[in-house]
Every structure is written in C-alpha cells, then in structure tokens.
C-alpha cells in the first residue's frame, strides 16, 4: 500500500514552483497587508481579493513539535518522519512540517526550510532544520 499522493490545488502553483527554485513564495493581501497561508484566491483575514505573491526569507521559529513513535497508519510505516513540527514564519503563517538534522529541538529556536536538491517541485511540504545563521 503506498502513501496517499498529495493533491496540489491550482492556487498554490507559485508556492510549489517557487520551492523548485529555492524560493519561499507566500501571498500578501494588498488591502490589509497580512500574509496568507495556505494559499487562497482571497484574503481570509479581510476577504479582499487583491493578493500578490512575494518571496519571503525561508526561515522561521519552531512553534511546537513532537517525537512521534507510532505512524498514523500502515501507509506511513516507511521512513516515518519522527519529528512532526509547526514552524511560525510570521504572525500569520504557520506551516506544518517535519524537522531534520536538528539534534535537540527547542521550541522558540530559529529554523530554516530545506529546499529540495533536485530543482523539482516537491510533492510534500519540505522539512526544516536548525538555522545557525
């Protein structure tokens, strides 16, 4: 049994394409100025429809994480990510992700997104690692 395949929505195109070019692309509402994630065709903060994609620094803060010992189903038995995490990119942007090469994670630590090596659009949200910069 294989893992369920990700289903990318068309509105998210620039996000996934941006990752292949080592860029973190996030929408900003031109009316209320807040960032929007996950991608939508409108701003969920103020319901305006005037949005723009912008490149954001691929860094954030570790908001929470866990060490997961039991995968959610047999579909995930292979390479089960052991560090599910939530990263805060901005007050309005939280990403569900995983942690890699992070040693002892600490909530509040600086983290950065690990772009795919292969210039391909990833199928799933990339992981984050410790940001030593």
């Amino acid at each position, binding site marked *: 049994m294989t*893992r*369920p*395949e*990700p*289903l*990318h*929505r068309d509105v*998210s195109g620039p996000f996934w394409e941006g990752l292949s070019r080592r860029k973190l692309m996030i929408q900003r509402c031109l009316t209320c100025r807040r960032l929007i994630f*996950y991608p939508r065709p409108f701003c969920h903060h103020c319901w305006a429809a005037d949005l723009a994609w912008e490149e954001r620094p691929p860094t954030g803060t570790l*908001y*929470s*994480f*866990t*060490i*997961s*010992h*039991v*995968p*959610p*189903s047999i*579909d*995930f038995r292979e390479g*089960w*990510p052991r560090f*599910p*995490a*939530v990263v805060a990119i901005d*007050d309005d942007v*939280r*990403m*569900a*992700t*995983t942690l890699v090469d992070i040693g002892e994670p*600490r*909530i*509040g630590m600086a983290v950065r997104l690990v772009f795919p090596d292969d210039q391909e659009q990833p*199928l*799933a*949200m990339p992981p984050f690692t410790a940001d030593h910069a």
Partner: protein
Amino acid sequence: MPGNSKAVILGYAELPASPANAPPPFPTTLDMCAHLARETIADAGLDRDCIDGLITGSLLESRYFAPATLSEYLGLNLSFGDVVDLGGAGSAGMVWRAAAAIAAGMCRAVLCIAPGMLDRSPDNDWARFGASSPLPGSPQAEFEIPIGMLGQNVPYAMIANRYAAVHGYDAHALARLVAQQRLNANATPGAIFEHVPLSVEAVLASRMIADPLRKLEIVMPCVGGAAILVTDADLVPAAAHRPVRIAGSGEAMSVKSAHHAPDLLCSPVVAAAARAFAMAGSSPSAMHAVQIYDCYSITVLVTLENAGFCGAGEGKALLNSRDLTWRGDFPINTNGGQLGYGQTGLAGGMGHVVEGARQIMGRAGGRQIANCERVFVTGNGGIMSENVALVLEGW
C-alpha cells in the same frame, strides 16, 4: 431569562462501553439508535408520540439525510431534524441546539442520539489515517496528509509541548489526573476499565506514543452510545426524575487544523466557557463537578485553565493537589471520563453530558456527589478546534 431556560434534560440512556474488537452490540447504527431512543423515552416517562425533534450524530449506513433516515426507522413525525458534525463537540452541541429549537417554538421534545459504532469499511480514510479532508481541493490533502500530519496523537502532543515550553511540564500531574479518573471509572458499571485499577506509576511507565503523551493518557476506542431527551419544561410529567436545566451554553470554533490557531494554548474553550457562564449567571467556583472532554490528559489540563477554573500555567498544581474523585473537593469526570469509561467514537462526548445530568438528578448510585446542583460540561472536536461548554443546573 436566558434563552435556554425553557428546556430541560428529562431522561437519558447509555450503553456500556464494549471493546472495539468485540462483536458489535447491534447489527447497524440504526438499530443502536432505536435502542437508545426507546430506552431514553422510557427513562423520561413520556410517550414516544411527544417526540417532535431529533438530532443525531452521523449514521454509518447513510452518508446523507441522516435525520430523515433515522426518523423513518423510528417512525417519527418531526418539526425539527438535524445532524451535528462537530466531532467530539457534537454531543454537547446537540444539547443547546435542542434547547434553542424549543425556545424558538419549533418543537417541544427533542431526542438527541449519539451512536458510537465503529466504521469497519476498508476505504474509510478517517479510520485509515485520521484524515477528515483527503479529497482534491482540500488544503489538508495538499499540506498535511503527505507528511503524515494526521490523526490526533501528534497534534495533541504539540499542544503538550507548547504548554511545556511556556509553563513547564509536569508529567506527574497529568498521570495523577488519569489515575484519579480511573478511580471514578472503577465505581462506574459499564466503564471499559471498571474492574481495572491504575496507578500513577503505571501511567508514567506506559509506552510513549507522541512525546510527551503516553498510551495510558490517551483514550481507548470502544463501541457504545448514549442519548438524552431535551424537552420544554412544560412537558415535565409528575413522576419525572429531577429535570436538569440547560442554564448556560457557549460554542466557539475558528480553525480545523491546530497549527493554524494563533495560540495553541488558547483554545475555543476560552470563549465557549465564558459565554456559558455568562448566560447562566454563574462562574467556575459555583460548580459542584466538571465533566471535561478528555480524549487526552492534556485536553483536560488546557480546558480547565481556558475555562477559568485556574489561571494559565496553574492547572498542574490543581491536578496535583485536589481530590479529583467523585468523593473529592474537585470532582472531574465522575464516571471515569472517556479515559476511564472508553471513547465510544463520536458518542464519547455524550457520556459527559449524561454523567452531568445523572449527578444532578441524584442517580449516580455508588459514585453520587452529595448536593450536586451545578455541573460544567465540555465538548471538544478536532484538536481543540471546536468547543462547546454547558452549565447544567438542577431544577
């Protein structure tokens, strides 16, 4: 007078919890609902012809049209039918919806049924990997499912770790909560762990599932179900059990996936509880018991703080120092809660409602709290994403 004051809980029925791998007690969800309906109306002492409202949880046999499907099976004529889709908050959510329909003059006697049969169909994505939204167009399918951000264990563990980072973690306090609720379960006929004692040490030694949450701090899925009858106060028969007023209710939700919540430690319980206490003209200190949705130990801790029973970060001290048993000075989940009784699927939340009503009615037998007039009840859906709070009072 608060809008809910016309309505009372007049009767209830509850099945014992049975193991998930045992033969189900009924061949279909419809049959479980019928059993619960017949028991509830008999408990209320009214004729089944008075039932003109029906709220149900989802039916395994019928993806759509649940209220009419169940009404047909039960032979009812309704002026109000509904299905509540708030996860574990659904049962508590049914209570105020029934009261509101009565207050609006739509009906006078509402059967609220929470069946807890298990879905054994092979294509059930929820059962397979805990995904509520696996279909194309779903942000969950795009961003969460592929990385295994699924189910409940991981997100609730993230609430616990966030709590640890902000307030410090006390595994002993949470293990003590579980052990004290188990004492309550040991006094509850029908609880899955009625005959199984549990120590703090055993909780702390149980298998780590998602750090810091251990297996015995997590509910065990069971099969079961419960129902209540909510009626106009004018319908109370002379020989009734003591009716239970729905004195206050509150509900809140904003996001589905916990990581989109602005503050993982500030759940919708804050708003729901504040609204319920305000409507009831009451406060946490006036409660004689609390029946708190307890899918995980951490859920109870965060709920108690969010509902104002103690300040932020003070829940650990409360859980470590008070007597949480039915005999004690701060009774929590006097039937064992779902941790002690078993989580009967989406019906688990109705167990808290029924136990709150049972204590106020004076029908809790060997675990009866003396002079129980007011009970606070919560419902919780998703990852503390949908919350309902109720203040129940004796009439």
